[in-house]
């Protein structure tokens, strides 16, 4: 056996490292939490890393998981060792091919980071809902519960699959295992070679489709043979458990790590036994060890091989002493008599009992659900389950981990129970996404994992926002392998990297008695105590904490580290936690810095070294006084005029106390109130824009581009200005639309701003005396917090301008319309949300939105708060997210239903027009509602109609009343990213375009799968580096606009707000007015492009000027009016593509990796820019000529 090599990696990497080595073709598609396995494989491949067969695996990104499974099927059928990685809905899309692959007895392994399925809501977190949905496909299922096991089972499953010819689904818990960083022993190449039998690989290849040995597979079968055909495979499945067992033994022989189909841990005379699989089993293992040592007769059986479920192996593991068994499923099977694992075991044991072959008295069996969507599953809960097993009449079909006060399924547990060992150091860190806390902790784990004999575990929790998100790092270090698959609740080290958190969350609840508490505070060691809220002071005294403080931001600033405090806080941790000897720790940090940054330049290394030295000088221990003397209170989590729901539910979610909510408090059908972001004042910006009315030219550009709708303008008649706050400014409104007594004001929601500065960059007005100042300038947020909030409240109460008096197609005037999408959790400087907000301003009161899964569904609908809101009349966008792949179809469904309602209403109206009044009925029926004033008139008429109807008592009148709102125009929108529109949803999108129906499609085109971390899509520009295109994309992006134009009756626009905002607004208005399918493809800058997003709008302009993002509008309505439908709205390539591309990291990186390829990419992009312009101009010229001809003829 060769020397043991330990590495500190996460579960995804542990699997990818094996899967890559033992496969030849890998078909991939991004889906959380499995994406990193695919990304790593692509990176290995682009780095030229070889597999054990001495070749570089081919990695192919597909358009969907359905596509990936199809390619896997094809590659398997033609004899390649093939794999894929997926989760959740992705796995569901693979089901059809899984049946085929299994039916054809084809060896392969699908590696699944198991995740919840979207039901009443989507969840990216872990449970077994997905894998349990494919248990009937014929795939064998092998479950791993630790990072080490995921690594090992990736190999064992492949070996067993090759031998058994049965495809495997190897799964491990999403996030809990896929993203947990752990120290594991690496499998070497020799072991892989020893496990993968070359003869079996050859046998697989010999079964391949080839014209050299032709045969037919995949026939269409009839009643005569299909049934028998299904039964032919039984013997293969019968043989499977034994094969897996043998492969596990072989693996144990090679590595010393032993696994069994069912692993039994606990007392040999156990009476109460829990059975489960996945990471939860490890926590039960740990809990069993703890209580067995105290004399309890309990045990756990970890299910490894779930399909084929070998009852005989299972029964062998059960001791004679068994009296009761609890079977825990991490899934919910509604309507069944129990969850899957429970049913398997109950049925099996009952059958044996019936036959009289059960070697012990039939135990009492209960089943329960736990851990859905990564819900915590702790030793305290496990104790409750064991306790339940002791009861005379234990609860069956229970839940554990929630409080079910509706159907009373839940078991109660004592949350104070902890079994954490003294030998394990437990540390919890609170940081901001942007401050480098998680990165530093990952680094710390590696330092300790790789540099000492300790075992390590790191798990990271992120909140729901993409801007200003709070991160919590849970780190464990100890001398034995760590099985604690749950968050730390009793930490002996707690660090708060942002002092404001202390005013928002109960951070110290994580600290155990006598724990060390490290605080990054701007205050001196003398002052820091007095600046703490009273509750924090009290807890510190009660728990006798050791208190350390550092002003990390000032150290970072002094050492040129900017706002990155990672190295500073990491040094503090090592200096005071005692996990390593201080000198050694410092040396290790320095080594790691050299390793990370050495190649990138000496300067960064020097800065980090300086930061370390400075840290030690500025880290202070603070003596805790005996009494609390603070009057500071914790900040309320919600502010404003909110309802009970927000007070009882939303506020709890924001406070991080959502786990305590009871079943009765949660909406039962996934319906949540909209417009709740306004109550969560996040105060995350360090600087916010401030308006200078003297310089402002009232162009409203800042209002347009603000991604979070925090800058707004109003024109208000001066009569409304009463009791004006001192710092509230307004000036005479400019422009012909406005009267002399109308005033213009701009206000900033300073508490909601993310500080992106996009508005300042886009402001065209310069201060004539100080040209570095504009009409809006970034200033410190803190001093403005109170006055800013008061001004905002005042502003919001001022009336909105009469919509009917504004020209909505004019950019400036469109920005006086109230946005019905505000304060979302999108990234600071997001390029998508300004378009989303614009649509809400223009059509919000009549919009129904189908939103494809992706960034826009996350910032649009990720709890705790929702950005879509109502206007003062109670009207606003109705929003829903179905799936990623079906959004166009989903939205088309909206249209069909609404049209049906409208038609029914019209029929009824016509039928009863005399009763209602012919004039009213006819005016309603004849109204075209082409523009907003007409729609408003129609609303008034419908109100009159409703009044009339309410006086009529008959059945049809009631029907018409319930449908009458559909007599007012509804605007159907489908929104989503390029991943949806170009790739996974293109089939449906294309079908919707072909339908001729009046729908509006908004493609928020960032040219990557932004939400899952920037994977390549068919919109990705040539020469851009993206995940899955690690070497830069060589192909051209798809011209989806041109494809849509080919239908001739589709309104098509390509827009880029930063290049031409007037054209953008026009396109939105025209698209919505067009009575047929419309598609707007909107260039959206994105954090995945790699530059400071405050320049986002400038980059949009560069993209257009380079010719890589053409601007045009194709309006079929104009053709009907005898006008040219095609309007090319840009001047073609007027700058070289390089002047756009090399401003962004995504393109520039290629040059730094492969200069030759970079030159080719530039050349390809250059000719693409030229060709696109020619194509669009030709089209414009063609239609121009046609119209002239038509004109001449008429």
């Amino acid at each position: 056996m060769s020397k043991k090599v330990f590495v500190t990696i996460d579960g995804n990497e542990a699997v990818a490292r094996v899967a890559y080595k033992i496969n030849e073709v890998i078909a991939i598609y991004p889906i959380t939490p499995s994406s990193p396995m695919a990304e790593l494989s692509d990176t290995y491949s682009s780095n030229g890393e070889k597999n054990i067969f001495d070749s570089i695996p081919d990695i192919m990104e597909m358009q969907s998981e359905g596509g990936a499974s199809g390619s896997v099927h094809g590659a398997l059928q033609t004899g390649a060792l093939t794999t894929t990685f997926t989760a959740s809905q992705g796995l569901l899309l693979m089901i059809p091919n899984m049946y085929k692959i299994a039916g054809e007895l084809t060896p392969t392994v699908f590696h699944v980071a198991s995740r919840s399925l979207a039901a009443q809501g989507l969840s990216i977190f872990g449970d077994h809902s997905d894998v349990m949905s494919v248990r009937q496909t014929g795939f064998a299922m092998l479950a791993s519960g630790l990072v080490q096991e995921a690594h090992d089972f990736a190999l064992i499953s492949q070996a067993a699959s090759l031998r058994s010819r049965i495809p495997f689904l190897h799964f491990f818990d999403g996030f809990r295992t896929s993203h947990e960083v752990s120290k594991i022993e690496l499998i070497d190449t020799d072991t892989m070679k020893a496990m993968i039998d070359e003869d079996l690989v050859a046998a697989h290849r010999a079964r391949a489709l080839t014209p050299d040995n032709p045969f037919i597979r995949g026939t269409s079968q009839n009643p005569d043979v299909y049934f028998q055909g299904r039964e032919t495979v039984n013997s293969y499945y019968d043989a499977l458990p034994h094969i897996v067992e043998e492969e596990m033994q072989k693996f144990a022989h090679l590595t010393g790590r032993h696994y069994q189909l069912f692993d039994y841990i606990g007392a040999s005379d156990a009476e109460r036994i829990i059975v489960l699989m996945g990471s939860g089993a490890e926590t039960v293992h740990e809990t069993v060890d703890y209580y067995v040592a105290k004399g309890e007769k309990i045990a756990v059986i970890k299910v490894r091989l779930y399909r084929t479920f070998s009852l005989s192996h299972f029964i062998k593991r059960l001791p004679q002493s068994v009296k009761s068994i609890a079977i825990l499923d991490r899934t919910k099977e509604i309507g069944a008599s129990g969850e899957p694992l429970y049913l398997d075991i109950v049925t099996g044991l009952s059958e044996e009992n019936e036959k009289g072959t059960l070697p012990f008295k039939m135990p009492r069996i209960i089943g329960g659900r736990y851990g859905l969507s990564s819900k915590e599953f702790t030793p305290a809960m496990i104790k409750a389950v064991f306790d339940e097993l002791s009861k005379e009449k234990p609860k069956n079909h229970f839940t554990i981990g929630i409080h079910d006060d509706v159907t009373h399924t839940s078991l109660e547990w004592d949350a104070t129970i902890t079994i954490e060992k003294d030998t394990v150091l437990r540390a919890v860190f609170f940081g901001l996404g942007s401050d480098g806390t998680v990165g530093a902790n990952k680094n710390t784990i590696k330092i300790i994992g790789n540099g000492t004999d300790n075992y390590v575990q790191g798990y990271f929790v992120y909140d729901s926002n993409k801007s200003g998100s709070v991160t919590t790092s849970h780190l464990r270090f100890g001398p034995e392998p760590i099985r604690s698959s749950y968050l730390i609740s009793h930490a002996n080290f707690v660090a708060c990297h942002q002092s404001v958190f202390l005013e928002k969350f109960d951070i110290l609840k994580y600290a155990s008695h006598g724990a060390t508490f490290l605080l990054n505070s701007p205050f001196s060691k003398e002052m820091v105590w007095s600046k703490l809220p009273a509750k924090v002071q009290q807890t510190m005294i009660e728990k006798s904490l050791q208190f350390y403080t550092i002003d990390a931001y000032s150290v970072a600033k002094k050492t040129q580290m900017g706002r990155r405090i990672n190295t500073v806080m990491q040094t503090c941790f090592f200096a005071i936690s005692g996990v390593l000897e201080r000198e050694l720790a410092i040396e290790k940090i320095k080594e790691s810095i050299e390793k990370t940054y050495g190649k990138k330049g000496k300067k960064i290394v020097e800065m980090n070294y300086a930061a370390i030295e400075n840290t030690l000088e500025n880290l202070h221990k603070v003596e805790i006084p005996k009494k609390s003397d603070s009057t500071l209170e914790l900040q309320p989590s919600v502010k404003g005029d909110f309802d009970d729901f927000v007070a009882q539910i939303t506020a709890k979610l924001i406070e991080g106390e959502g786990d305590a909510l009871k079943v009765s408090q949660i909406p039962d059908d996934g319906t949540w109130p909209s417009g709740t972001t306004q109550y969560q004042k996040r105060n995350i910006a360090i600087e916010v824009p401030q308006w200078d009315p003297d310089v402002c030219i009232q162009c409203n550009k800042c209002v347009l581009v603000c991604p979070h709708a925090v800058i707004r303008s109003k024109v208000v008649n001066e009569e409304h200005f009463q009791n004006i706050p001192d710092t509230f400014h307004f000036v005479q409104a400019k422009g012909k639309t406005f009267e002399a007594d109308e005033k213009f004001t701009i206000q900033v929601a300073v508490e909601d701003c993310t500080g992106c500065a996009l508005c300042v960059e886009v402001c065209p007005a310069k201060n004539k005396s100080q040209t570095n100042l504009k009409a809006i300038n970034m200033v410190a947020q803190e001093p403005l917090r109170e006055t800013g909030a008061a001004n905002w409240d005042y502003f919001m109460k001022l009336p909105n301008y009469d919509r009917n008096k504004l020209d909505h197609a004019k950019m400036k005037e469109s920005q006086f319309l109230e946005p019905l999408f505000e304060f979302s959790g999108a990234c600071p400087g997001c390029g998508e949300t300004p378009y989303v907000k614009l649509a809400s301003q223009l059509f919000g009161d009549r919009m129904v939105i189908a939103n494809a899964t992706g960034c826009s569904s996350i910032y649009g609908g990720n709890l705790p708060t929702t950005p879509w809101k109502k206007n003062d009349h109670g009207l606003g966008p109705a929003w829903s997210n179905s799936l990623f792949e079906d959004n166009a179809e989903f939205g088309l469904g909206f249209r069909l239903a609404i049209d049906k309602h409208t038609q029914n209403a019209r029929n009824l109206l016509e039928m009863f027009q005399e009763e209602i009044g012919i004039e009213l009925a006819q005016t309603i029926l004849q109204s075209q509602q082409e523009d907003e004033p007409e729609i408003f008139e129609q609303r008034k008429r419908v109100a009159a109609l409703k009044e009339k109807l309410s006086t009529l008592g008959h059945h049809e009148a009631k029907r018409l009343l319930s449908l009458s709102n559909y007599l007012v125009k509804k605007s159907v929108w489908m929104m989503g990213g390029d991943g949806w529109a170009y790739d996974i949803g293109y089939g449906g999108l294309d079908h919707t375009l072909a339908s001729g129906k009046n729908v509006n499609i908004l493609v928020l085109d960032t040219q990557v799968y932004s939400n899952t971390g920037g994977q390549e899509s068919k919109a990705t520009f040539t020469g851009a580096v993206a995940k899955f295109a690690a070497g830069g994309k060589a192909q051209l992006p798809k011209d989806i606009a041109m494809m849509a134009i080919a239908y001739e009756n589709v309104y098509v626009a390509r827009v880029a707000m930063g290049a031409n905002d007037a054209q953008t607004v026009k396109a939105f208005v025209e698209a919505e007015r067009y009575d047929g399918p419309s598609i707007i493809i909107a260039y959206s800058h994105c954090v995945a492009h790699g530059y400071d997003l405050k320049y986002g709008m400038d980059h949009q302009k560069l993209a257009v000027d380079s010719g890589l993002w053409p601007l045009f509008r194709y309006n079929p309505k104009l053709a009907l009016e005898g006008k040219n439908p095609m309007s090319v709205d840009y001047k073609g390539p007027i700058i070289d593509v390089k002047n756009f591309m090399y401003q962004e990291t995504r393109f520039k990186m290629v040059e730094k990796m492969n200069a030759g390829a970079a030159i080719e990419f530039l050349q390809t992009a250059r000719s693409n820019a030229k060709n696109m312009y020619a194509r669009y101009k030709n089209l414009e010229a063609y239609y121009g000529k046609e119209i002239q001809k038509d004109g001449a003829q008429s």
Partner: protein
Amino acid sequence: MKLDTSYMGLALKNPIIAGASPLTASVDSIKRLEDAGAAAIILHSIFEEQINHESHEIDHFLFKGSESYAEAIGYFPDMTLTNLESHTYLEEIASLKKSLSIPLIASLNGVSKGGWIEYAGKLQEAGADGLELNITYIPTDTDMDGMTVEKLYLDALQAVIDTVNIPVSIKMNAIFSSPASMAKQFSTLGAKGLVLFDRPVHVDIDLEELTARQTIHYSTSADISESLRWTAILYKKLASSLCISTGVHTNEDVLKAMMSGADAVQMASALLKNGESYITTVLEKLTQWMEEKEYISIEQMKGSISLHHTVNPAAYQRANYMRLLTEYRY
């Protein structure tokens, strides 16, 4: 006709060096410059900011937005970046050294103490025959006195000289209170060559955008004046060799430079305007002129009209400025 000369200890076949410019940023044009007769190449400058900025930029943008959201732990693949600008520059030197037969001088632009000084060592390792240090420091701090500024220059030069064995020259600027004294101090520290002078990027104001901006203007022959003056003054006073780098456009300019006491000249603007082959033209005319005037070598004319050897030393002195104006007026 002997055109050869010696500059900072390097033997040059003629006095015309291709100065740092976009033309010395590409292998192809460097080859063309050599073919046209350039006696040495000053590679395009690599800036301290460039070396530092690039690493900061990569670090910043590759990790920006990472570790903030559960679905997107990062936004870029794990990339192996082998062609950082600073690496590329070194590779360029190494590959050029293989194909060039004339000396190759790297140009390093920086001022602070720090990691970039080590980069000088890497330039030497890569095969540079010499190093031209270009320090342009604009002291905007009203509390920073002249001595402090001078010390920055001297310290940077010292640090580079301590790091390498190849000859180091320094590109001076003309706005020191006492250029001659500075030149002496540079020379004493061990600068093998003094390049007169650096031409800072021009500043302009954009009235449309209401912003200040940098512009690049080509020099003309008229710009050679200050370099001639200080070369003439410094000739034979220092151990360092002298090189004129501003306003050298014609064969006459080369002759004037030599006669004032320069050992070599650098051409940049003239080549950008007229192309690489222009060196051939200048060399031909130079030879022609020397033949006509019966000069046998460059060496023969060096310093022949320096401060000490001119019949009119007053021409180089400030007092004459007034007379020049007077003559101009009448």
